[in-house]
């Protein structure tokens, strides 16, 4: 129970108010939800981990989301969006009709000249989906599952607000991130791991732009919904390790004793907060085993290491992809992998190639691995950056760009092997089937069985939602 005034409620009322609170579900509702969500163990989900949605708004296509977040601003022109015309105009001024009155970041006051795409584009897979040659693994193994949305646009031109916009649906800090929204709506099925997990890898090419924890914060939602960061150094989850000199058995003695004392108090007071506290200590203790179990790759066969190109534990993007699969298997709802390496203000040719190579194999392996386990159909993979990069040169690199860029989706409910929408012939503005960041949010929620207009939280007198004041489901890309 986590509403601000929860402590004032009695347990009985708590159950009676289930539909208005975050909590308990009547059995009938649970069964209905089971039917819709195919949640295997939902009846076992204790009330403090359940979501507010008692009945999904429509049949879901997916159970979980893995978001491969290319932080820094991947150039769409070197990766997913072929622009032969830009090559023709290389070195010439960008037409003023395109650039006039547009927002500019570091190129403020500079000459705006066309800069040719730096890599060849080739057709991939049976679908012949065209994207850059710097993605050999995705090209070979994933193209027919991928739907490129080439008509993305956003509203922020600097990293920090653009990340905030992508993750929370608005630039104003303090709003919940997407994963927090999902847990708020759907709850978490994982019983020894967090439902919303974040991992960050750092590459060797672009500027290492900072990433704020705001990107996975729960904002005005209860903090139990915030993303939990898994780290490659130190405790994988903060404070998950026992203190020095305390074995698991000793910790177990401690937790069971303190819960027994808490239970005594609850027998006297019948306070749902105490009951929740007891349950959370149990969950914490399970996490203390569940997290190391997740991180322990010793049971993974050699062919899996070959597939991902890593043995794990190295903090690489591929290692995080492997952990993402393991988290997915264990019931995490929203898994976000940041790769911080895409801010290519200079040397975009070499750097985009280098960063793509850091990402390509892990992403392709994840899709292959999920597919071979029959999980790809129930998992949505989202791949993209907070914005794109200018068709104009910044030296031999490109500046931030908000008016047009590409993201792709793959997996459950997505038509693979297709491109949707387009930028203009120079790759500046999204022009055909323009897709707003909030449309991606609406589509993700839709695939999970949620109407984005109905997942709301009342704060400061307003019903807030992930899609803020926008968002429409991108129907044509749905299978």
């Amino acid at each position: 129970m986590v509403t601000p005034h929860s402590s004032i409620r009695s347990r009985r009322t708590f159950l009676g108010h289930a539909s208005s609170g975050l909590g308990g579900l009547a059995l009938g509702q649970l069964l209905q939800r089971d039917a819709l969500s195919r949640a295997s163990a939902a009846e076992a989900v204790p009330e403090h981990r359940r979501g507010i949605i008692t009945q999904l708004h429509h049949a879901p296509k997916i159970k979980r989301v893995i978001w491969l977040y290319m932080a820094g601003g991947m150039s769409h022109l070197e990766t997913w969006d072929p622009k032969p015309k830009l090559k023709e105009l290389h070195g010439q001024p960008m037409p003023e009709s395109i650039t006039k009155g547009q927002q500019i970041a570091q190129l403020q006051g500079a000459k705006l000249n066309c800069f040719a795409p730096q890599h060849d584009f080739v057709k991939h897979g049976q679908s012949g989906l065209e994207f850059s040659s710097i993605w050999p693994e995705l090209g070979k193994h994933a193209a027919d599952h991928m739907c490129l949305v080439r008509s993305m646009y956003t509203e922020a031109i600097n990293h920090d607000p653009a990340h905030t916009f992508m993750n929370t649906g608005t630039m104003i800090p303090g709003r919940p991130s997407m994963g927090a929204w999902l847990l708020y709506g759907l709850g978490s099925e994982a019983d020894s791991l967090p439902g919303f997990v974040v991992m960050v890898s750092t590459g060797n090419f672009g500027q290492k732009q900072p990433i704020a924890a705001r990107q996975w914060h729960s904002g005005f939602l209860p903090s139990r919904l915030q993303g939990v960061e898994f780290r490659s150094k130190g405790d994988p989850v903060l404070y998950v390790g026992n203190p020095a000199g305390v074995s698991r058995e000793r910790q177990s003695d401690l937790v069971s004793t303190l819960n027994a004392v808490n239970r005594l108090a609850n027998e006297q007071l019948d306070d749902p907060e105490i009951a929740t506290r007891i349950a959370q200590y149990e969950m914490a203790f399970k996490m203390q085993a569940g997290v190391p179990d997740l991180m322990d790759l010793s049971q993974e066969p050699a062919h899996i290491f070959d597939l991902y190109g890593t043995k794990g534990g190295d903090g690489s993007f591929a290692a995080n992809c492997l952990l993402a699969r393991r988290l997915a298997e264990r019931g995490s709802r929203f898994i976000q992998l940041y790769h911080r390496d895409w801010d290519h203000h200079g040397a975009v040719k070499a750097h985009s190639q280098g960063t793509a190579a850091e990402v390509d194999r892990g992403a392709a392996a994840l899709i292959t691995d999920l597919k071979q386990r029959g999980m790809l159909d129930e998992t949505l993979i989202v791949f993209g950056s907070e914005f794109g990069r200018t068709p104009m040169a910044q030296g031999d690199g490109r500046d931030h760009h908000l008016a047009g860029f590409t993201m792709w989706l793959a997996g459950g409910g997505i038509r693979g092997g297709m491109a949707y929408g387009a930028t203009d012939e120079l790759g500046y503005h999204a022009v055909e089937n323009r897709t707003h960041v909030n449309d991606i949010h609406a589509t993700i929620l839709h695939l999970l069985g949620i109407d984005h207009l109905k997942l709301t939280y009342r704060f400061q007198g307003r019903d807030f939602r992930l899609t803020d004041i926008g968002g429409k489901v991108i129907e044509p890309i749905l299978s």
Partner: protein
Amino acid sequence: MSLLQPGFWGRTRPLLPIALLVALLGQVDSRLESAEPGIEFNRDIRPILSDNCFACHGPDARKRQAGLRLDVEDDARQALQSGARAIVPGHSDQSELVARIVSREPSEVMPPPETGKTLTPAQVDLLKRWVDAGAPWEGHWAFLPIRRPVPPAAADPQFVRNGIDQFILAGLASQGLDHAPAADKVTLLRRVHFDLVGLPPKPEEVESFLRDQSPEAYERVVDRLLESRHFGERMAMFWLDLVRYADSVGYHGDQPMSVTPYRDYVIDSFNANLPFDQFTIEQLAGDLLPNSTRAQKIAAGYNRLGMMSAEGGVQDKEYLAKYIAERVRNVSGAWLGVTLGCSECHDHKFDPFTTREFYQFEAFFADIQERGLYSGSDQTGAWGSSMPVPEPDQERELNRLDGELSKGKAQLDQPSPELAAAQADWEARQVSKVVWQPLAIASAQSREKAELKILDDQSVLAGGNRPATDTYTLAIPQVPAGTTALRLEVLPDDSLPAKGPGRADNGNFVLTELVLRRHREGAEPVVVELQNATASHEQKSHAEKHPDKAWSAASVMDGDARGADWGWAILDEAGRTNHAVLELKSDLQLAEGESLSVELRQNHSNPGHLLGRFRLLATTAPRPVKADGMGLPRNVRDLLAVAAVDRNDPQKAELAAYYRTIAPELQPVRERLATLQKQRDDLNRQIRITLVTVAVEPRMVRVLGRGNWMDETGDVVQPGLPAALGGVPGADRRLSRLDLAQWVVSPQNPLTSRVLVNRLWKQYFGAGLSRKLEDVGAQGDPPSHPELLDSLAAGLIDSGWDLKRLIRTMVTSGTYQQSAVPTPQQREKDPFNKWLSHQGRFRLDAELVRDNALAISGLLNPKIGGRNANPYQPPGYWAYLNFPMREWQNSAGDDLFRRGLYTHWQRQYLHPSLLAFDAPSREECTADRVRSNTPLQSLVLLNDPIYVEAARVFAEKVLTAGGATPAERLAYAYRRALSRAPRPEEERLLLPLLEKHLADYRADPEAARKLVSVGTSPSPTPLDPVELAGWTSLTRVLLNLHETINRN
């Protein structure tokens, strides 16, 4: 005297200069006698209309459908464009509103299906009955003038301590509820300790309170706590959330900013019981007060607490728009409890605020000096104006040092004949007697084909192509016989960037290597060896990594031993002549058929740092031959170039002043001055600074269409207040922040005091009288006890905004002193405790969870104010911060154990222990912290080293002071942690754990040693690690108990 007792109302204060509030929605007095006594418009009807109808039929004119406006009484009753009337009082059958909400036709039914909103049958019925009852209207409660209701009579003298209880009893009676019995004394004492100072009572305080059977015992405790210095800390936690106080800038690199003196101002103000109106005015406009004090200037730093960015590529205007809009959100959120921020892009959907009014409110802050893009990642001064805030002892030391320094300087400046003679002697030695002869150059070649032109004065001028690096080779047919040294002069030239002498854009060059060779026809060239390079000027900037800490002449003849990138450079003397002198190791005389070449390598990695104009000279003067004016500042070199007789008075004074800086006879004075200066600099570094508000000519503020900062078509607006809150006062001058501040706390403003009282109510009862602390607008919650809220709000104003008095009234009420354990009947009838039939039970706030553990263990450092503290934080937690990359540095010693509110508040990566317990990031105003209950909290309490260390130190106390037997010791531990004795059943659970772990650690003493070594605090007495470890298990249990971290 209670705030609510008769007689109190008589006290009034003079009105503040502007009393702007006049009409409030024009509906002040229409609280009708309803034929349906059960229905109240504000409680029952407005929330339905607001939630379901106002979005299309409310204040936002652009979104308004069918011309219908339901938030204004007259409009709601008018005939519509269609001829129908939404509301015909007394006739639900004629009211279009009713027809629409009962319709089953999708095209007709309201709210329309696509909104996703539906009315429940009960709501439909309520609206119908309300219309039939005459549709009685009320203005929105929060905007109505504050009334001064008389507390209803009450017949329960046992319970009633003051007027609060009379209101509460009336409410309870209306619901058929009874109040709870008084809490037991221990619970009450703990409650009031946590609520007022945020720390548990010490065992001796518990004992003395239990012993004191007098009727005033409790009030004495309250008075003691209100006078405690920790009271201000507890209140500051509340206030700092509202004003989004933090120690880092929040955007992008989230670099540190220094505002801790503001935090201390807040603590001090609450402790001194500064009237809240004064407190408000000082924060919003302390800088504008006549002869503002230091405290007032610090207070006005409030305006600088918002987030800032130093992200390269930030568009200045965009961020200026962000910063100023956030100020509107903050002032309206922190003081007024309304969501004016919603009107940034459109008229407010629920409350009567227009977009134009939003920007008029913004204009109050248009005078604040600021930048959109800040340049710095530096803590001192890179975030705009700041001021030093020395502590009293620092101030004294500063004065002392300044006095000593000026004494020393006077001594230095004292002229004397001896000094004058010494100076004349020195001057004579500076004038070089060396005769230099320009060398004729036969040819000059550039490796990169730059144009090298030989001019009449034998200088070489470079032009044409400007390569990244280059090597010039000069052929020199002849040198004077017996040449002992060469001189390379670099010369300014109008054709060069910044007039040269180099070709870089700033006029600089870097000569990385100079090689002199002797040539003879048919023989290999022979390198002529050089020594003792000197120069008239060597660049010092950007030379931190140069082995010589300067771009030295020596680095041109070292064979790149210092590094290939280093050479001679002269930045900050662009456009001027300089020279380098290189001695030859042996005298040079060219034989017949011999010639000389000079190779000038310029391989610096920063492209284009090439020589622009230069010439070579030679001398036969005996060694040592050095550059003129070597090591002397430019101005001194220039002065020495003027003959002594030709110098004017200022020049003489300048030269004399310089000489005093090097005169050997003044060395002791200078050393003393240097020491003093160093002390002062060191002290300066220790003195905290704080960001301050500097008022400048107000910048233009426009209405931005849909909040778009690039839109330049909107009207320019002047500072002004929303009409619904009083509107434009008709002043003949531009309104200022001071006007705004005075209006915020003017007695006619109905919001500020209501909102403040409501929020403080939450502190002491667990929830507000109006449950939505962050919004008292139409979407807020009507208060459960509007008369009580008004009574307290009016009392607050009438008392001269005396907060301690208000708080005292709250915590001495019978309502406050009730038990927090509800009866089954109370649970059944009042599940959310809306009617205050019992006290609230809730978890301690994040900072207090920590403070409590530290206090129980005895580790707490009770120091008030000062710099931030950095308690243990897991390494690598800041790994994704950048510009610059940073690692958290744990504080040392006692600073590790300071109260939670002093923890360095990093907006992007708040300390994970605080974050786990719902401390907000403070990026925006937080009026109502959520209180969640999560597994991460359990992990923190179990495993964060500070809680393990606190448990260990707690166990040390138990072993050294807790008696002899395990039972005695457990009782001692319980008294420290929970202020009570353990119950037998608790003992039965805990003592076996102790026994088991004692045995266990006895078998594994290494583990025991490890456990008791967690943390840095030393153990005062040598204790057996095994016993200490066993008891640490037990104290860890106590620190983790739900009861320990809850206030009941």
